[in-house]
């Protein structure tokens, strides 16, 4: 056994390490990307393999408008984060609420599409392989949009109560990373389902 004095040399100045919020969100994004990859692989693998039922070409309509909504919400959340970093609270809140509205519109669009598929074309998750993989993939994405919207709404409420200031801009950036991720996933899902899949 030996005793060691715990007097270490003086703390070096300029020791900079990344922000833990950003690193953690990057980790979460990596993990979620892996989950989505598996669902995308299943979707692609099962293309053309359904034994019965409607095919993608017969029933899918490309949701261009709602896609534009979602993708522009990335722009608005980016603007919101920038405004907050510069301390312009009002603009931040404006862009933030716009983001929520655009995200909400996207979800509405998904709901509308699902309603049409179910009631007009009789396509459900249990109809055939296409139904299973389509609803799972788009649904998983929609679930992530919903989770994101819940967080965005929470921030909106806090913001309206005046609790979000320049000090929270780090947290807002982390949240916007998540939102950008959700949009990036939609680009992939959109390409796989509506472009390649038909």
């Amino acid at each position: 056994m030996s005793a060691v004095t715990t007097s270490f040399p003086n703390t070096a100045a300029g020791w900079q390490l990344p922000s833990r919020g950003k690193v953690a969100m990057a980790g979460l994004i990596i993990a979620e990307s892996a989950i989505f990859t598996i669902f995308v692989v299943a979707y692609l693998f099962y293309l053309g393999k359904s034994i019965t039922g409607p095919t993608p070409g017969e029933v899918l309509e490309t949701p261009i408008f709602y896609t534009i909504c979602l993708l522009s919400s990335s722009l608005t959340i980016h603007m919101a984060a920038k405004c907050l970093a510069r301390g312009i609270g009002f603009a931040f809140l404006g862009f933030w609420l716009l983001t929520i509205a655009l995200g909400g519109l996207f979800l509405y669009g998904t709901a509308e599409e699902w309603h049409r598929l179910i009631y007009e074309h009789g396509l459900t998750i249990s109809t055939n392989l296409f139904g299973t993989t389509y609803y799972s993939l788009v649904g998983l994405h929609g679930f992530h949009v919903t989770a994101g919207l819940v967080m965005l709404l929470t921030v909106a409420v806090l913001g309206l109560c005046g609790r979000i200031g320049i000090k929270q801009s780090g947290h807002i950036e982390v949240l916007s990373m998540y939102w950008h991720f959700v949009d990036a996933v939609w680009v992939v899902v959109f390409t796989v389902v509506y472009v390649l899949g038909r």
Partner: protein
Amino acid sequence: MSSNAITIPGTQIQARPWVDELHQWVTTVDHKRLGILYILSALLFLVIGGVEALVMRIQLMHAQNNFVSPQVFNRMFTMHGTTMIFFVAMPVLFGFANYLVPLMIGARDMAFPRLNAFSFWLSFLGGLLLYFSFVGGSGLYGAGNAPDVGWWSYAPLGARAFSPGHSSDYWTLALLVSGFGSIGTAINIIATVLCLRCPGMKISRMPLLVWLNLVMAGMVLIAVTPLSAAQIMLLIDRYLGGHFFDTQAGGSAVLWMHFFWIFGHPEVYILIIPSFAFMSEIIPVFSRKPIFGYPVMVGATVCIAFVSMSVWAHHMFTIGMNSYANSFFAITTMAVGVPTGIKIFNWIGTMWGGRIQFKTPMLFSIAFLFQFLVAGLTGIIQSSAPVDWQLSLSYFVVAHFHYVIVGGILFALFAAFYYWYPKMTGRMLSERLGKWHFWLFLIGFHLTFDVMHIPGVLGMPRRIYTYEPGRGWDTLNLIISIGAFIQAIAILVFVANLVISYFKGARAGNDPWDAWTLEWSISSPPPAYNFATVPTVASRRPLWDLKHPEDPDSRYE
């Protein structure tokens, strides 16, 4: 004068009521306590999983035995495998990582203490869910309780049609829940290592344990999530009428296998890499030399992490992939043996020229080296796909992976226990009981798992609750079972050691092993805040520099 003396605050030591103590433990966010909780819960499940193994070994002692029914036996191997992987190995390794990583990087806690607690309790809940199946579920043909589909739950056996009732769902949900816990811990480890290192501790100066847990955490993010995805798909099949793995609707049973093994293979590297981490800390200290080839050890580990993502279908050599696919997975599997072998050579290089001290941690480490060598080589034997067409799904595979998991991971864990128990509790584990534990376990282990390779070569498949006499398997199985009981006794000795030494062990002091990483610079057990002042380091072995100011590592790095 009144006998009511005035108590001066701070001079009275009050024993806290046990309810209070329990409350502290249940609500803790301290990485050290959470680490210990992980380890204790893993020990609990280790004993349970061990009992399941013993039940199986009793049943297999003789041909056509009827100690248990086939239904019970099938539940036993399912639960044993699931428990050991998800509720023993993962938690105990996360527990050590939790305890040690912040200490080794000079930090006061993990990056996200509350996420840490949440991840632990999720993991523990998963274990409870799995075992609740014994009372809540119902298995094949409604014959009651725990899942019996094997720990891989191959499609379509896991489908509603072949696993009615809820037993299979307990399996799915338990793994889904604990999987999310694992992802939480992995994110925490990565954030801690990247963001909380003390000044001077560049990435190239981190202890190897920290490096290897960082790599492991990265792998968890990419490998555990495919399992979660597959579990979600299975639930959709079972409850929403989905057809992911429904072969009658054109679905593919092979797709489940791919998804499962894309998780399953990296998973075993997720388990072995922290074990390598223990070896890389313990072997240098008991050889009295630094690790041989630190940069190569890091590089080899990163290499293993990447290559191990490309070998998964070596678990599927018999499913009928074409010859090109079989050849591909054969060569990637052989390739991953190269960096792994390099690590073994570096450990031997560390001992070479040293002054080896045969304390209990080192005994387990030396046994690890020998056993992991054998395990790796039986892996290489199976990497040759045609050979695997014979050996796959037989007791040879069972022997191989137990050699890795028990002979490798568990031995490394025992070494870690003996090495860090003094730091965690302030007491030394008994060397005498340690040596009894070691030798008993070694003998039992080899009796069981060396012999177990032979029935495999003689044609005995796995997952069978009984077998025909006259195949040459009878005596071998008896010997294997005897070895299992010897291991069980050794575990009891170990548990006794843990308990007795807690109360009677010699006081450890800060640094009982004369080691070199930061955790040995503070008291045993450490104070809640770890470091009174955040240390600054100038080399990979800060305490070596302090103890040998005339010859510090910083001069050579």
